[in-house]
Structure formats: structure tokens, C-alpha cells
């Protein structure tokens, strides 16, 4: 297992992690912060800001972890560094 390969693996892993954290920031902080403004909109009969906090962001968090792991598994396999 070459040193270059490991470097590439970590570069890809870090980049993926930054993207994940950016999405996390958006749904965990930015939308809830602007809940008052979002409340003008509506989703499934809920005021949008309220919906995002009680349900929307939570669903995004679950999907975000699943998506992150899917892509991370691919990176691991591409670099031949998967442990399964």
C-alpha cells in the first residue's frame, strides 16, 4: 500500500467531510436561525421554518450520514483501503 495512495485517500476523505459539514451547517444552524423568515413558506401544511426544525432537518441528518458513508465506502474501495 503506497504512501501516495494513502495521501490521496485522506485528501478525498477530508474533502468529503468538509462537504458533509457544510450541509450540516446549513440544516443545523442556518435554516433554524432564519426560522422566522422561512415561516412565510409552507410545506405539507406546516409553516416551513417550523417544519424544518421539527422534521425536515432531522430527516436530512439521517440521509446525510447514509450518503456520507456510501461515498466514504467508495473512496475506501477505490484506494484499496476498505476494511471489509
Amino acid at each position: 500500500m503506497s504512501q501516495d495512495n494513502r495521501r490521496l485517500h485522506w485528501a478525498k476523505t477530508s474533502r468529503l467531510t468538509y462537504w458533509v459539514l457544510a450541509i450540516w451547517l446549513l440544516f443545523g444552524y442556518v435554516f433554524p436561525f432564519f426560522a422566522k423568515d422561512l415561516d412565510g413558506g409552507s410545506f405539507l401544511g406546516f409553516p416551513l421554518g417550523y417544519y424544518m426544525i421539527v422534521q425536515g432537518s432531522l430527516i436530512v441528518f439521517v440521509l446525510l450520514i447514509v450518503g456520507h458513508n456510501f461515498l466514504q465506502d467508495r473512496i475506501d474501495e477505490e484506494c484499496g483501503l476498505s476494511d471489509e
Partner: protein
Amino acid sequence: MSDQTQGTRFVDRLGKVYGIYTLGFLGFFALMAIVEQLGASAQLIGILFLLFTIAIYATIGWLSRTMQVDAYYVAGREVPAFYNGMATAADWMSGASFVALAGGIYFGGYPYLGFVIGWTGGYVLVNALMAPYLRKFGCYTVPDFIGTRYGGNLARLCAVLVLVVASFTYVTAQINATGTIAARALAIPFEFGVWFGLLGILLCSMLGGMRGVTWTQVAQYIVLIIAYLVPVIWMSNAQGFGIIPHFTYGDAALRIAELEAEYGLVAAAQSVAGLKVLTTAHFDPQGGLDSWKFVTLALCMMAGTASLPHILMRYFTTPSVRQARKSVGWSLFFIFLLYFTAPALATLTKLQLLDPNLATAVVGKAIDDVSNLEWIQNWTAVGMLSVVDQNGDGIVQLNEFFMRPDIVVLATPEIAGLPYVISGLVAAGGMAAAMSTADGLLLAIANALSHDLYYKIIDPKADTKRRLIVARVLLVVIGVLAALIASLQLTGILGAVAWAFCFACSGLFFPLVLGIWWKRANRPGAIAGMIAGFAAGTIYLIHVYNGGDQLWSIDHLRFGMIGMPVSLVAMVVVSLVTEAPDAEMQAMVDETRVPTGKTILAETH
């Protein structure tokens, strides 16, 4: 499950075992419903529910007994992702989540919802920054990682200190919750309830350590999620809010806003000690400071999630790094099931009490009728509810209906007129939630003390038998201490829980994250980060709690907002002015970052 039965491995039969268990529990529930129809008292049903479930947990604890170090500390690293997800969810969802969350949403409005976002979004951090790498590291405890990554006993000791303070703050609240539930269901004094709860907790964890706790937590998750979802869905169907209310309660939320405007949200003319009237709008974010309070609370809870040792150590138990990641996903999914139900429950229960068009309404009705309701009388008798006609107009106003926030979940079945068997189920669920979290926390503390303090620092030559005996003695001692403090009833359930998160993120978040993500982080930096962050947070907590001025509107629930930046700055500055870690340590960090290959620490150590 025990060391003797090696024929077919228990982990290969998990689906069957827990499938039968779940059906058995549902069968028991049906049996209780029949027993109730035959005229059994509510009291008897409550007692049977508690005793039946605790007997099952204790049996699992007994069957999981072990004298192997890796089974005791990390469940033999053979817990599949799906089951580790359930165990983590039970570990995570405390008595506070189960009992107090919906009540908090009911009374707290927008600012309180920061807990909902914080206690779910934290798992994104756990998955992205921590769990896979800590699993690769192969540690038994969180201080084990700190001690090995940075080297030296002082770093290890600091981590043990933060862990103990954070987890101990949390565990007293959990034992308090088991005491409250046991006291009410078994009709015994609270002080006895606390000891009864502790006994149940120790039965699960003492013989089998992490292995026992893992398999009881899976069983406890199944009970707690059934106990949370069944009443909500039943209530929703009984009251005509839809088959599955989760996606359709938007109208209810809007209607509440109308009613709140109509009644007016005003403080009570005369307050009742320990009880609250509704004064915060269901959802009315003001922007500005209100939003600031929301995001600071969410940040403390998220960073706390990613630093709380009893959660992180669950990911040490999976067979591989990939399974560790996968199990974070399952964890959040199982947690999500409860967290997206709590706001629905809070909203529908509130609507039932407030909307005069509904038969269940209390507000706007004649005081004499309300006082005659059975559920009102039950809860008034134990001092957790009070309806007083303070303005003397004979009608119950919104600010004349007093309630203790944490009874919302427990009282919902009664408000909606469901059979008592549901209340028994809810009591069993609350007990499962509090017990499973207390188990994880007690084990985290006792393991850190026995592995890191005793074995790694005090007596590195101790043999396996001695180590495991010390671990168990510590478990009992800490449990007893926690129960003693819980019986003093110093804080409400939720205050102490938020503190635990703030202690953990003040002291441990950056040393853990940077230990993986910043190779330049070294021992003096980590020690400075832990001590400065933890000290700054603690001093600020004492300052605000005693009525000192708040900095940037940061109150005692969010003191991690002070601890974390101090910790980060101290760690970075001290690391940079001292020598870089040696090549060996840097290689260790590189090794931690790839999923393949041997763990950093030996399989058993």
C-alpha cells in the same frame, strides 16, 4: 451468550432472539390489556409492567456474564451495526428524552427546539469526525485514546477527570428518573424508588460489562420505542388526528397559534411552586437574540454529543470501521423515530387541552367540570398538576392551568382517555430509557477509572481477574454514590442533562477532534485544551448560576459556548509554541485515518 456456550454464537442468532422477544413483549402488552378488562387495578398493571421488563433485562445481564477483558470493555467487538444502532439509541435516549422532551417542547416553544436539532445533528459530527477513527484506534475507553494519542499519564488523567464530571452529572439525573417512575408505578417513596432503580441498573451491567449492557440496551430500545409510538398513534386515532399523525399536524400547530392569540399568553396571577402555566408561544421565533439562543444551544448539544464518552464507546464494539460508521447511521435513524414523534405528541396534546371544540379540552371549560376529571384528580393528588380559578370567573383560563412539564408524556394517555394499560406501557418505556442511559454512563465512568486510572496508571501489572474485579467494585461504588446524590433531588431532570453536554464539549471536543484531524496537536496542547476549556466552562457555569452577568446572553445551559473556544485557543496556541509530536506519533495519526490494517492498540490490552 455467556462464555460457556460457544456452540452456535449468540451474535448469529440475534434476529431470531430479538424477534421472539419483541413478539413476547407485544404478547405481554395484550395480556395486560385483557387483565385490565377483567378488572385488575391500574396499580397492579403498572407493577407487572415494571417487574416483567426489569426481570428480562436482568436475565440478559446474567446470561452475558464474562471474565474476558475485551468482552467486558468492548463486548468482544462483535456487535453488528444494526444492533449497535439500537443499543446506542437506548444509551442515548435518556429519561429526559423520553419523559421530558415532549413536555419541554410543549412549554418551551422555539428556543427549546434547539435541543431537538442539537440532539440529532450531533450524530453527523460523531460520524464525520470521531466514530470510524476511534474504532480504528482500538481503544477501550475515551481516555484510552487521549492517553495513547498524546502519550503520558497527565493527558489520560485529564480526560478521565472530564469524563467523570460530565457523566456523573448526567447519571444522577437518570437515577433520579428511575426513582420517579418506580415510585409512581410501585407506590413507594421516592427514596426507595431510587435504590430500586439502581438495583435494576446494576443487574444489567455488573456481570457482563459492555456485553451485558449492549444486549440489554437493545432489549430496552425495543420497549422504549414501542412505548413511545403506540400511545401517540393510538391517541391520534382515538381523537381523529389521522392514522399516523407525524406528517399532518401542521394544522394543529396553526390552530394552537390562533388559540394562543385568543387566550393571550400571560403569566399566572399567582404562581404555584414547581408547576408552570403556558407562557411561551408554540412556535414564534423572533429572530435576532431568539435565533442566537437557538443556535448556541444546538451547538453545545451537538459538540457534547460528539464528546460524550458513553456514546463514543458504543462505536468501539463493532467488528469493523465500516460497521462503526454504518451503526452511526442506524443510531440516528432509531433516535429519529422518537425525536420526530415528540413534537407531534406535544402539539396534539396541547391542542386537546386548549381547543374548546374538542371533548378533551380543559382550558375554557367550567372549573367544576374540570376538577371532576379523573386524570386531573390523579395528578393533582401527587402535586404535579393544579387547576385554580384565580380570577374567580368559574372558567379555567390558560394561565390557571398549572402543570409540571415532565408529565406531558405520562399524562397524554389519560388526557386522551386511553385504557390504563397504555400508561403502564409508558412507565415501562420511561424506565427502559432511564435505565439504559444510566447503565451506559455508569459503565463509562467505572471503565475509565478501572482501565485508565487503575490499570494504566496505578497498577499496570494487575492480572485480568483483578482488573475485572476492580471494574465491578467501582461500578457498584459509583452507582451507590450517584443514587445517594439523586435521592437529594438537587436539580430538575433537564438542567443537569444540558450541563453534562457542556462539560463534555468544553473539555473533550477539541482534544478528540484535533487528535485525529490535526497531526501537529501535541501533548502539552491537549492538556492545556482540556484543562483550560473545562475550567473556563466550569467557572462560567458557577458565575451565571449564582446570578452573575451573562456574556452574550449565554446562560447556564450553554456554558460550553465559553468552554469550547477557550479550549480550542489554548490547545492550538500551546501546541504551536511547543515541539511538534515525534515521527512515531505522526505515523500513528496517519494509521488512524485509514480503515484497513491492525488497530493501533492491541486487540486486548
